[in-house]
């Protein structure tokens, strides 16, 4: 039996081109150099460390400044205390009396040199307390209130 082969014939066909997006993109050569990338990475890694060192250095500097100022403050405080002691010794009653009697020729008041001024109680009560003068206010502001202290009694 004779079989007849089915004959096939193929024709060349021009197929449409693949869309652009379906085409695999050619590997483009990177324009960044690897050295720069390494530098960036290194910088990113080192930056916090640098910041930390900077901060520590600044803190140490500030610490030294504070230390210096503390010493200066202590010196000034010491000087202030010394001056205060000097003021107190200059104001001591012994010294004032010695100068008054030996240098200025003053004497303690005698009985007949004193006078008691009588004030009616009503008048005394009605009197307003004397307002401090400008000088007294400035003195108080400067902390010189001690000068008035000897007027206080028990």
């Amino acid at each position, binding site marked *: 039996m004779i079989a007849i082969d089915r004959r096939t014939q193929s024709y060349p066909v021009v197929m449409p081109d693949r869309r652009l997006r379906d085409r695999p993109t050619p590997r483009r050569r990177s324009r960044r150099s690897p050295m720069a990338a390494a530098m960036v990475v290194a910088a990113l890694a080192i930056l916090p460390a640098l910041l930390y060192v900077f901060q*520590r250095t600044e*803190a*140490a500097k*500030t*610490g*030294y400044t*504070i*230390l210096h100022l503390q010493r200066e403050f202590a010196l000034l405080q*010491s000087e202030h*205390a*010394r001056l*205060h*002691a*000097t*003021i*107190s*010794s200059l*104001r*001591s*009653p*012994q010294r004032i*009396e010695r100068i008054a009697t030996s240098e200025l020729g003053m004497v*303690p*008041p005698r*009985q*007949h*040199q*004193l*006078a*008691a001024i*009588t004030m009616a109680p009503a008048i005394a009560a009605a009197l307003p307390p004397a307002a401090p003068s400008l000088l007294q206010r400035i003195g108080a502001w400067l902390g010189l*209130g*001690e000068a008035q*202290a*000897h*007027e*206080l*009694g*028990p």
Partner: protein
Amino acid sequence: MTRRPPGRSREAGHHQLTRRRAALSDAELHRLVRRRTSVLFVLLLAGLSLLVGRLVYIQGAQADHLQRLALHQQLGAFILPTERGRIFDRAGRLLVTNVEVDSAYAVPRAIRDRQAFARVVAPLLRMDPREIERRLEPRLYFVWLKRKVSPETVAALRALPLDGQLGFLKEERRGYPARTLAAHVLGFVGIDNQGLAGVELAYETTLRGRPGRAVAGLDGVGRPLLETRRLAATPVDGSDLVLTIDQVIQHIAERELERALAETGAARGMVLVMVPRTGEILALAARPGFEPGAFHRVAPERWVNPAVSAVYEPGSTFKLITAAAALDSGRVDQNDTFACPPFLQLGKYRIRDVHRYCTRTQTLEDIIRHSSNVGAAQVAQVVGKEIFYDYIRRFGFGAPTGIDVPGESGGIVNPPTAWLGPGLETIGFGQGISTTALQLLTAASALVNDGMLVPPHVVRMVRDREGRVVRAVSPQPARRVVTPETARAVLRMMVRAVEDGTGKMAAIPGYTVAGKTGTAQKPAPEGGYLVGRYIASFLGFVPVPHPRLAILVILDEPRGAYFGGAVAAPVFREIASRTLWYLRVPPMTPLALPPQTP
């Protein structure tokens, strides 16, 4: 470097080795290489093992020790100093402060010639060169030479070419601007600013404060790195004290006391000024005195505060207590009369008056006014031992008053069973009993407080460094010792004693003064009394009826005139009048007109 044998060149050695290698078979060469490699490996392993062993030793066994060393090198522990509290008078005037001074130290390790060093430094420090040489032990890095030296000495020492051998450290020293003023009250401190006497000792914990502690990393030159500092304890400065003492009144008391000592030739003396209603001590003067900043230059006996520590027989001032006990117990009435004999014979003892002022009878007021020993002895007999002893104790004799000054004595009050012979009678006029000046003034002040006894005190308040009141020292609760009627009656007798009695010289024009004189013989150590040695005193209040001041003046062993009314009463008058003017207390009666000048 190995030396090659003479006559043998490098080439000759190389050829010999090549020949030897050629003589070995491959197997032998292989074994040789393996053996050498093994030896090298073993050596390396041994070396490595040693290193590992060392590492384990350091990191394990030595870890704690090395860690401590490292910490010691890198960290520093610091004591944060505090300032000792200052002391002010009642008006805020500075009495004690702190002044920074230099202390000199030496570095013995850096000193080559100790003898020469001591010879140069000793005169400037006013020290014995041998003492300095003894201190300079060569193995030491630090030794104090002298602490708290004057600025002049420091300047002279700094001028010496002793770099590295001598140094200075800042320290605080107590400064007393008023020098000797109120020295017995203020007291003094030791070399480390610890209170040793007076208020400085009594209020040591208040004044001292609490030093802080901190740990900090150190830099290369040993400076602390503040940013690493950690506080272990916050420093707290000492609090300031405000005393009841008034600087001006204290000065008046000291000035008048010194004047009295010079005029009477008395060896010692003391003055107490108190606010009777509150128990506040305004002045406490004692002579001989001392300078608190240089206390070590005087004998320790001078450091004692005689007003609170020394006991003495009060003499006639004690008749006030006898009179109060007699009236308050109801054993004696103000109108009762007592005999006025020339003397009172008690067994082998005879009691007599110095000045016989009456011949027939005397009242209790007369006894106080004229200070009659015979009369006081009779009053004591009427009161009786048990009741009298009870009143003596009620007035606080025989026990400390509780004043806030250290070293207070309670006085000597024997129980009635020990009052032998004329003990009752002599105590009636203030002999045979010992009190402190403070006890006597406190007890007598009850007479102006309607019979209430107010304990004394010298500190008014405690303030922090900013001036805020931390603690106000309120007076201790008063207790009643006699009725107000009794107190007023005795006070009236005291007024009469000044107006027309033994205390006339204490009178102050314009003011009503109540007072009582005292002249006591000094007891001898072996018993009995010393001949010609007396303690003259005057106790008074002014202005009556509302006294602002209670003053007690005591002069020990005055020469010449020795009666309290003659030598102590004028001192009272001067102190009281100056103090009243200073306090602006107006006179109660018109003052006499000034004399007309021609």
